[in-house]
């Protein structure tokens, strides 16, 4: 809770810092703010609090999820650097402030106890992201991405709200536990059909936000058009917050109708895995490939939600952590490599841009390789354990229920190896430019840190898993 309050204040403070002449102070200040919020977040460890008449609830699960969100935000902010150097980003303070505000929304989505709070958190997050997506004002691609995201996002919000209204009509409350006791307590007259329809609408809205197929159609375009830094932000923070919210909503409120949403979710999971992985193979741009890869990772995370075992939260946590760190590394390298030789004024994001990267800068090539291996789920990296924990929740649920999903998931991980390794092959085996790429010290530090984390979590997953 302290983290939510402090981040809101820091965001406003950040806007005031924008008045200063020197822009140098902004980046360290924002990093300091996020670190402070992270520390404030940890203060509540092992305490359970309920705020504002059952609106928000903090517990260890909340703290774990929000720590992951704050960590990824910290990493994303640390690799932002083009602000202030070109015309477009003459007001970097505003972008940092909007990022902080959107994290406030994400934290509210993690800790909500009432559907009102879920709605407000979702909207704070989404509206900030519409702005960030369109932040490259003169680029038509960025404009198009912002408009698509905005129109599709508000459409999904409408569907989500209609679902909430119907659930309210059936249960008479927005409170998660009150809805939960209605659903599982079995009212004398039987569960109202409005509840089933409402649940399906809510699911459609939430699945849209975490970009699961068949609601993923906006993802590649938006991720491709947005400035790469914000793509990294969107694909990590939104996914973590979205899955935390989805899991919390489904387990606290709708455990009583598990038989219904389990079927919907497994269907969506299979479709997401197939669509995400197979389409990713056909991409010629690394950025678009990473966009489809984020769709496919939503599929893996959905397995843990659909399985709903006591291990599910820790599996979702570990997977989100591994995925977020690897994705940020991937995008960080992409930002640097793509801007070396722009084509027609925009960064070159094709696979060919990575040719010969190992000779141009060994550190970049190595961290890229580690992050791709982690995303593909090869042992000795964090991604492998993420997939392992997720798959073991499905095994716990039982092969008769989840067997089909598991088969598809394992097959699709193999497909994933193909497109992730294309980048590694380009950077190590192919020859391209030999001009070396320079990196700033902070950037270098972040790359080393994320690479070390990915390998460290791969070797000693229990260190973090004890906390979850």
């Amino acid at each position, binding site marked *: 809770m302290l983290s939510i309050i402090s981040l809101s204040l820091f965001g406003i403070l950040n806007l005031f810092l924008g008045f200063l002449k020197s822009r140098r102070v902004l980046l360290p200040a924002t990093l300091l703010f996020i670190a402070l919020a992270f520390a404030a977040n940890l203060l509540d460890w092992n305490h359970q609090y309920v705020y504002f008449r059952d609106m928000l609830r903090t517990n260890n699960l909340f703290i774990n999820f929000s720590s992951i969100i704050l960590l990824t935000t910290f990493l994303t902010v640390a690799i932002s650097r083009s602000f202030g150097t070109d015309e477009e980003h003459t007001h970097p303070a505003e972008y940092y402030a909007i990022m902080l505000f959107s994290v406030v929304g994400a934290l509210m989505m993690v800790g909500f106890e009432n*559907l*009102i709070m879920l*709605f*407000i958190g979702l*909207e704070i997050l989404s*509206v900030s992201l*519409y*702005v960030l997506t*369109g932040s490259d*004002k*003169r680029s*038509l*691609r960025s*404009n*198009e*991405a*912002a*408009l*698509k995201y*905005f*129109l599709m996002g*508000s*459409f999904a*919000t*409408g*569907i989500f*709200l*209609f679902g*909430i*209204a*119907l659930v*309210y*009509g059936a249960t*008479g*409350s*927005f409170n998660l536990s009150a809805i939960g006791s209605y659903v599982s307590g079995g009212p004398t007259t039987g569960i109202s059909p*409005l509840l089933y329809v409402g649940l399906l609408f809510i699911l459609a809205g939430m699945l849209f936000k975490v970009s699961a197929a068949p609601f993923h159609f906006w993802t*590649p*375009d938006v991720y*491709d*058009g947005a400035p790469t830094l914000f793509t990294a932000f969107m694909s990590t923070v939104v996914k973590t917050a979205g899955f935390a919210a989805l899991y919390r909503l489904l387990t606290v409120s709708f455990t009583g109708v598990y038989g219904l949403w389990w079927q919907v979710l497994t269907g969506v999971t299979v479709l997401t895995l197939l669509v995400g992985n197979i389409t990713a193979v056909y*991409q*010629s*741009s690394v950025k*678009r490939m990473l966009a489809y890869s984020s769709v496919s990772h939503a599929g893996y995370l959905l397995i843990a939600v659909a399985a709903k075992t006591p291990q599910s939260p820790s599996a979702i946590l570990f997977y989100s952590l591994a995925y977020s760190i690897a994705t940020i590394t991937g995008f960080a390298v992409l930002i640097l490599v793509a801007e070396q030789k722009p084509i027609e004024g925009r960064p070159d994001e094709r696979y060919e841009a990575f040719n010969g990267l190992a000779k141009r800068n060994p550190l970049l090539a190595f961290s890229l390789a580690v992050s791709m291996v982690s995303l593909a789920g090869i042992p000795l990296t964090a991604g492998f354990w993420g997939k392992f924990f997720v798959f073991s929740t499905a095994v716990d649920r039982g092969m008769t229920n989840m067997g089909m999903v598991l088969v598809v998931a394992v097959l699709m991980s193999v497909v994933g190896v193909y497109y992730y390794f294309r980048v590694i092959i380009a950077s190590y085996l192919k020859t391209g430019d030999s001009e070396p790429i320079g990196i700033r010290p902070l950037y270098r530090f972040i790359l080393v840190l994320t690479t070390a984390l990915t390998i460290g979590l791969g070797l000693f997953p229990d260190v973090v898993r004890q906390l979850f």
Partner: protein
Amino acid sequence: MQPTIPDVVQTIPLPYYIWFASALFVIGIVGVLTRRNAIIIFMSVEVMLNAVNLLLVAFSAYRSDPAGQVFVFFIMAVAAAEVSVGLAIIVMIYRNIQSIDIGLLNRLKG
């Protein structure tokens, strides 16, 4: 004695409200899916949100529970924030391509 507002709302049976709100909602969905003008799509989204508001108010009156009406206020406030961002995006696009036809936006493919 003046009838209270819940009494007035309750002069119409609840299913009528549900059907009416659903009809409005479907009109909104059809509008989003078929129209090509960004502003009209945006308007259709607002129709969807107002269908939700109507439904919430009807349920709230029938259950004599204020929470539904409070939610309506939040929806209105958030919708206003969304409008300001959305119109800014549409203006930004109009400045660049002098049109708000979403059919012209096809740079992102693959």
